[in-house]
C-alpha cells in the first residue's frame, strides 16, 4: 500500500511535488477508499494534464525510486538511470516514498546526484518515525557513515553484512539482498509486486509474447482474464494460450494467444494478433491489473485509455473501486486523457499536472484548489479550464 511519494529535481520536475495516495481524517464511507493505519487509502488516483506537461515523469520518478531501492546493485553503469532538471547540478535529486509493508508503515528517503548517493534512510512509524538505517556521505573522508537502530521486533531487523562493499550508486537494501539479508529480501519482494507499464525510461508497452507466457504459466489469472474479457462486449467468448515449439530445432517455445468467437452456434478461433487493438490492449493490461487485484498491490499505468473506449476505462477503474473485485485493496495509479474517471473519483484522488514557462512540471491534488467540492462535475469543470492543467492551444 502506497501512502505518498515526493520528488524534486528529476527530469522536468524542478521543485518538489508530492502525491498523496492516502489521507488522514475520519473514515471515508464513499467506497472510494479503504481504511488502514487510521488512514483513508485511495483505491485509484488519476493523474491528468496536457501532453508534455510531465505526467509520465512523475511515474518515471516513482518507478526509478522503487527500482533503486530493489535493484540498483545490479546497475553496473556509473550513472544512475535518470536526468536532473535540465542537467541542474546545483541541487540534489530528492525522492521520498511512504508505504505500508507487512502491516508496518515505512518512509524511505533518498538524496542523490546521478552518480552518488548522498543520503539514504529508512524509517518505521511507531508513535513517530524511527530510523532503521541512515547512510550519509561524508565529503571530508569521502566515505559513508551508516547508522542502524536495533528494533525489538525481530522481523524489522536490518543487518549490514561486514563484508559488504557499498557502491556510490547502489542502495543499502539492494546490496544487502546480495547477502540474503532477510528484511531486505522481503522488502525487495514487496516492491517487485508493483506492476505496470512504466519504468525509469517512461512508458513501456506490454510485450504480447511475455504476457502470453505469463498467462500460460498462471492458469488461474488466465481464466480470470478470459472471463473478464468475454464480459466486455468484445465479441469473444474465451481467450486461451497454446505453447508451440518452433521448427526446425523445436527448442524455442512460443506462446500463441487466441480468442474464441461463437457465430451461429459454431465456434471459431482467431489469433489475438488479428483481434482489435483494443482487445489486445485489454489482454495485456490484465496481466498487470489482475495480479494486483489478487495480491492487493500497486499498479502504475501510463495512458490507461490508449486504444480503449471511455466506457472500458471506466470499467477498469471500477474494478479497483469495487470491494467485490478489489477485496485485497489494490491501488491503481494511472494517467489518462480519457477523463470520464474525473467524475468517478474524489478531489483528493485527482492529481493535476502542468508545466510553467520554465518547463518545470508542477502537480497538485484537486483538493488543493480553493472552492472545489466533491459534488462538482469535475469533468466539465476541468474541460472548461476552471482548474488549470489544460493545454493552451492557440489558433493555427
Amino acid at each position, binding site marked *: 500500500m502506497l*501512502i*505518498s511519494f*515526493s520528488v524534486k529535481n528529476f527530469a522536468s520536475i524542478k521543485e518538489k511535488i*508530492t502525491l*498523496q495516495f*492516502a*489521507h*488522514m481524517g475520519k473514515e471515508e464511507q464513499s467506497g472510494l477508499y479503504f481504511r488502514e493505519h487510521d*488512514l483513508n487509502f485511495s483505491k485509484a488516483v488519476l493523474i491528468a494534464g496536457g501532453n508534455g506537461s510531465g505526467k509520465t515523469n512523475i511515474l518515471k520518478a516513482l518507478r526509478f525510486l522503487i527500482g533503486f531501492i530493489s535493484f540498483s546493485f545490479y546497475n553496473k553503469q556509473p550513472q544512475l538511470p535518470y536526468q536532473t532538471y535540465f542537467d541542474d547540478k546545483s541541487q540534489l535529486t530528492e525522492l*521520498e516514498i*511512504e508505504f505500508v509493508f507487512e502491516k508496518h508503515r515505512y*518512509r524511505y528517503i533518498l538524496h542523490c546526484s546521478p552518480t552518488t548517493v548522498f543520503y539514504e534512510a529508512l524509517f518505521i512509524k511507531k508513535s513517530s518515525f524511527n530510523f532503521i538505517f541512515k547512510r550519509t556521505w561524508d565529503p571530508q573522508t569521502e566515505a559513508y557513515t551508516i547508522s542502524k537502530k536495533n528494533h525489538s521486533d525481530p522481523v524489522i531487523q536490518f543487518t549490514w553484512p561486514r563484508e559488504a562493499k557499498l557502491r556510490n550508486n547502489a542502495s543499502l537494501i539492494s546490496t544487502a539482498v546480495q547477502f540474503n539479508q532477510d528484511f531486505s529480501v522481503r522488502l525487495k519482494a514487496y516492491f517487485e509486486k508493483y506492476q505496470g507499464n512504466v519504468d525509469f525510461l517512461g512508458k513501456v508497452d506490454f510485450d504480447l509474447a511475455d504476457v502470453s507466457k505469463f498467462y500460460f504459466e498462471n492458469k488461474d489469472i488466465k481464466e480470470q482474464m478470459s472471463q473478464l474479457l468475454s464480459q466486455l462486449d468484445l465479441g469473444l467468448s474465451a481467450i486461451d494460450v497454446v505453447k508451440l515449439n518452433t521448427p526446425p530445432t523445436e527448442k524455442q517455445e512460443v506462446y500463441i494467444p487466441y480468442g474464441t468467437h461463437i457465430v451461429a452456434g459454431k465456434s471459431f478461433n482467431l489469433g489475438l494478433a488479428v483481434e482489435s487493438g483494443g482487445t489486445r490492449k485489454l489482454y495485456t493490461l490484465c496481466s498487470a491489473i489482475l495480479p494486483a487485484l489478487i495480491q492487493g498491490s500497486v499498479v502504475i499505468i501510463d495512458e490507461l485509455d490508449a486504444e480503449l473506449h471511455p466506457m472500458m476505462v471506466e470499467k477498469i477503474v471500477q474494478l479497483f473501486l469495487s470491494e467485490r473485485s478489489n477485496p485485497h485493496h489494490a491501488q491503481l495509479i494511472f494517467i489518462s486523457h480519457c477523463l470520464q474517471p474525473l467524475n468517478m473519483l474524489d478531489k483528493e484522488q485527482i492529481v493535476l499536472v*502542468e508545466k*510553467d*514557462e520554465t518547463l518545470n512540471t508542477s502537480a*497538485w491534488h484537486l483538493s*488543493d*484548489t*480553493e*472552492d*472545489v467540492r466533491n459534488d*462538482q*462535475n469535475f469533468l*466539465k*469543470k*476541468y*474541460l*472548461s*479550464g*476552471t*482548474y*488549470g492543467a*489544460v493545454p*493552451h492551444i*492557440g*489558433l493555427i
Partner: protein
Amino acid sequence: MLAKSNYKHKSNITKLVGVEGEDGPIFIEHLKNLYTNRKSLVQVTVYPAGGGSVQDIINRTAKKFAMADYSQGFCIIDDDRDEWKRWQGKIKNDATEKGIQEIIALQPICLECFLLGLLNEKTCNSSKDCKSAFKRIFKTERKVDFDNQFIARRFPKQLIEQQRKKNQLLDYIIKTLFERGI
C-alpha cells in the same frame, strides 16, 4: 508527508467565445494573448464558430459550451447580418436559453470595418467594400488572408491600449472577455 499543503490553487473563471468566420477568431485570440496568460485567473477559450447564419454560429458555440462547465459563454458576430438586425431580441433570447449570455456584434458593419477603424483607416459603407479595402491596403503585408503574425504586428498592445480609450466597443470586448470581474 501527510501534512496538507497550506498553498491553495485558485479556480479560474472560464469564458467560451464563439467567433464568426476564420479571421475573427484570430483577432480575438490575439487580444487574448495580449491580456491573459497561463497564470491569469481568467481562462478564455476562443472557438472558431464558422460561418452560416447567426443561428448556426450560436448553435455551434452552444454545443461547445454544453461540453464543459464554462463560467460564461459569448458569441461575436458581424453587425451587418440581416437576421440579426430583424430578430435581435429573439436571437438573444434563444442564445441565453442555450447558455450564451451575450452576443457582441462588431461595429460598424463587420470585423474588417472594425479593424480598419482601429488603424485609423477610412471605413466603407458595406461589408463587401470593407473586405476589399482591407485586402487592398494590406495585400503586400499578408501571406494568407489573415495570418497571426500580421495581426500581432499591425495591432500591438500599444495601439490597442490607445484605441480602447476612444473605441468603446474595443474597451468593452477587452473588459468583458479578459477581465475576471465582469
